[in-house]
């Protein structure tokens, strides 16, 4: 459906994306995940046609669109703020593209009516965008693109301005619409929870490079690089002392997730409780092992109640879940 081949993007002298190749399947929910400034939005905007590639190709549905202007690409985009035209009603917003394409008025009416029904906003058709809730605005933005018959929808961090509770509902809403209306979604976010929960597959960006492409489980459980391991989910970077204590011979970097450490009175390694972050169903406990602070996930409140700051306790580390990398411990994984 979408294929990027050796894509290179520069802003003036600065190379933002050096060399990216990627295939996205039809009907897939694909996420570009990475910290801010990593180039993920740039890639999305180049697919939309707002940023020119310096070299490489963008293939949409078998057609090379690399040098086509945005208005000819047939790609929908849902902006961070939805970019609904504030002076038009919902109906006019949705009809905009069809009018530009000079469709007949009865066809416009029929298609707009169908998509408004399908996205559940038919009752708001006569309202202006500022009279809608965030969720309704999002549906208008999606409907506006889909009414064009667009099979590809690009989402540029559409949930980043919302508070946590609304964001959860919106995630489900986007996923539901994508399943029901069967479009291909390319979703940009810096929020790992969002990426892991929504995506069929995701790509983790690190300074314009794809560090890993895979399913949520691949990315979380089998990170390809130290950067992916640190960026997606919480991780404890293991000190040489801890590795020695666990009998690890590996000279590169090693990580362990907080949920793979157990605290008990009968564990193998002695630690001191340094801090307790009570979060409800699961909480974080910081423990000190030979000068190194490790973060441990504790489930439920019973286990937590037995702990106090300064207390000496023991811990076990699940050896099967240690992530080992060949890269040297002195190399900066963020760079």
């Amino acid at each position: 459906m979408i294929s990027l081949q050796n894509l290179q993007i520069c802003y003036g002298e600065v190379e933002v994306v050096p060399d990216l190749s990627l295939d996205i399947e039809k009907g897939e929910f694909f996420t570009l995940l990475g910290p801010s400034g990593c180039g993920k939005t740039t890639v999305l905007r180049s697919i939309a046609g707002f940023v020119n590639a310096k070299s490489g190709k963008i293939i949409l549905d078998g057609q090379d669109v690399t040098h086509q202007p945005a208005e000819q690409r047939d790609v929908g985009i849902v902006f961070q703020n939805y970019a609904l035209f504030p002076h038009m009603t919902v109906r006019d917003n949705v009809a905009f593209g069809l009018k530009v394409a000079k469709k007949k008025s009865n066809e416009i009416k029929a298609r707009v009516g169908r998509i408004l029904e399908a996205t559940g906003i038919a009752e708001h058709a006569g309202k202006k965008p500022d009279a809608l809730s965030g969720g309704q605005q999002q549906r208008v933005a999606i409907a506006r693109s889909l009414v064009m018959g667009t099979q590809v929808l690009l989402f540029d961090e559409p949930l980043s301005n919302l508070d946590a509770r609304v964001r959860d509902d919106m995630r489900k809403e986007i996923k539901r619409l994508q399943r029901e209306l069967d479009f291909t979604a390319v979703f940009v976010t810096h929020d790992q929870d969002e990426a892991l929960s929504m995506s069929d597959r995701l790509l983790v960006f690190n300074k314009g490079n794809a560090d890993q492409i895979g399913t949520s489980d691949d990315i979380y459980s089998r990170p390809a690089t130290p950067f992916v391991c640190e960026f997606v989910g919480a991780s404890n970077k293991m000190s040489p002392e801890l590795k020695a204590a666990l009998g690890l011979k590996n000279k590169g970097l090693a990580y362990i997730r907080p949920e793979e450490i157990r605290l008990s009175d009968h564990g193998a390694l002695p630690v001191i409780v340094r801090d307790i972050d009570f979060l409800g169903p699961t909480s974080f406990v910081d423990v000190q092992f030979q000068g190194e602070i490790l973060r441990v996930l504790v489930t439920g409140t019973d286990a937590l109640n037995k702990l106090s700051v300064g207390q000496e306790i023991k811990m076990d580390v699940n050896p099967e879940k240690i992530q080992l990398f060949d890269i040297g411990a002195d190399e900066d994984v963020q760079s």
Partner: protein
Amino acid sequence: MKMSSHSVQKSLYYLGIALILWVAVSFIYTPIFAVLTNAFVADGTVSFKSASELAGSNRVRGAITNTIIVTVFSVVTVNIVGIFQVAVLEYLSVRGRRILKVAYAMPLVFVSVVAATGYNFTYGQTGVLTRVIQSFFPALPNDWFSGIFAVIFAHTFLLTSFHYLFLRAAIRRVDYSLVEAARSLGASNMRAFVSVVLPLLLPTIFATSLLVAYKSLGSFAIPAVLGGRRFDMVAELILTLNSLRRPDMAAMLSIGLGIVVILCILLMQRIEKRGSYGGGAKTPVPIQRIVLSNPIINLVTHAAAYLVALIQLLPVVLVMIFSFAPAKSIIAEVIPSSLSLTNYIAVFSGGDAFTPLKNSLLMGGIAVSLGLAISLFVVILANRYKNRFTTGLDLTFMLPWVLPAPFIAIGLITAFATPSVLLGNQTLLGSFWILPIGYAIVVIPLMIRVLRAAFYSLDPYQLEAARALGASPFYRFMRVTLPAITPVIVLVAGMNINTILSEYSMSAFLFNVNNKPLSIALFEGARSTNPEQAAINLVYMTLIMVFSYFIISVADRYGLGRSDSR
């Protein structure tokens, strides 16, 4: 027995109230009442004689027709030039934007009588450009640049300041992702501009159009200098009627002008209230300039952009250069053969040449001091006690904002042409004081608006903190409030002195031998054929522009914008 500081404060407060009431009655209500009685009362009974006489006069009808034609044309042409300038500066990818921006900003410093004189110096009878064109086309008549054409031309390139200030700000608020959204739905750049950007700018365009109309309706200096002897507009005709000893007709005409101006302002406030579309973006995408891919359109756009810049820049540059030229060269040469400081020395060495500048600075200083004292008192009072009295006081001093300068001037003239009880049986007309008082009335509304905004933006917690620490109201004002608003006071003073230096409308009505201001000297200089006078005029114009530039730059830094000068 020694009075406590509290009772001293209380007595001062009541003295202040008494003074402010006297000012309101004497200089706002009495002049308005005088205009109304002059217009509608003859021989002790209500009469519409002056109205019917006005209606019967060909000259009045001509002036009204001229004013309407000039206003309608100006609104159209200023919008064409203004919207084009904003598109060039903010929406299109045009080379040399920095220099274009400087040129397009000229109407901010080149205003009123200074601009009129500058245009006359460039395009007028002995103007530099007229001489250049005549050297190629000797058949060009000397007075080619006069009458209604010259007035509309000058308006077109001098009233774009509202577009420069407000429309540019509005287009910057348009979220560029709206344009991208339109393009992703298949719209071209042009279609996106017309269907999405322009509708979002419409409220602002409408508001700036009304401001242009407001300015054109009351336009005085430009038609007076450039219109020629057979061309009248309403403001100038009011002055003429007054000098023909027909204050009743002058008053009636100024009421007519006032009503139209008030309608403009009411309409504008309605638009402001309806608000404009901001796009609502929390993180708006900054606008990206559109590259014109069609080479012909691109060339034409560049050519037009630079032509407009040249028209706006040329008079300013010529005035500045020739202010350093020997007097002889001013009416003879196209490029001065030598440059010196002689003209500046002539102005600053005192004597006659210095008098108008001295007068204007003195009267500006007096008007601004009086205006500040009154405005501060009104704003503080309205801020502290929100009741009918303070609201009424506030509205009273805002009244001159909706009244055109000729209306207020005719009011002052007719109210104080004879000894008045309100002034201890003194006659104001013909005295030095009438003009600074007129200036003060004109500047107070802007001062109140700016100071009110400054008071609103004060952090209330600071005052509560001072109160919690035991500071008295007076102490809080002196140590917390005043230091916070001092920069605003200084700026608003500068902005208004700037306005007064080139103020023409009020000056033309109220000046006399005791107080001839700079703007009148400039106007007279523009009509004189004496090269020495022309040289001094150029120095004045340069000085006013430099001062304006300084004040506007500082004001811009503090986000206060430009004073709405008449």
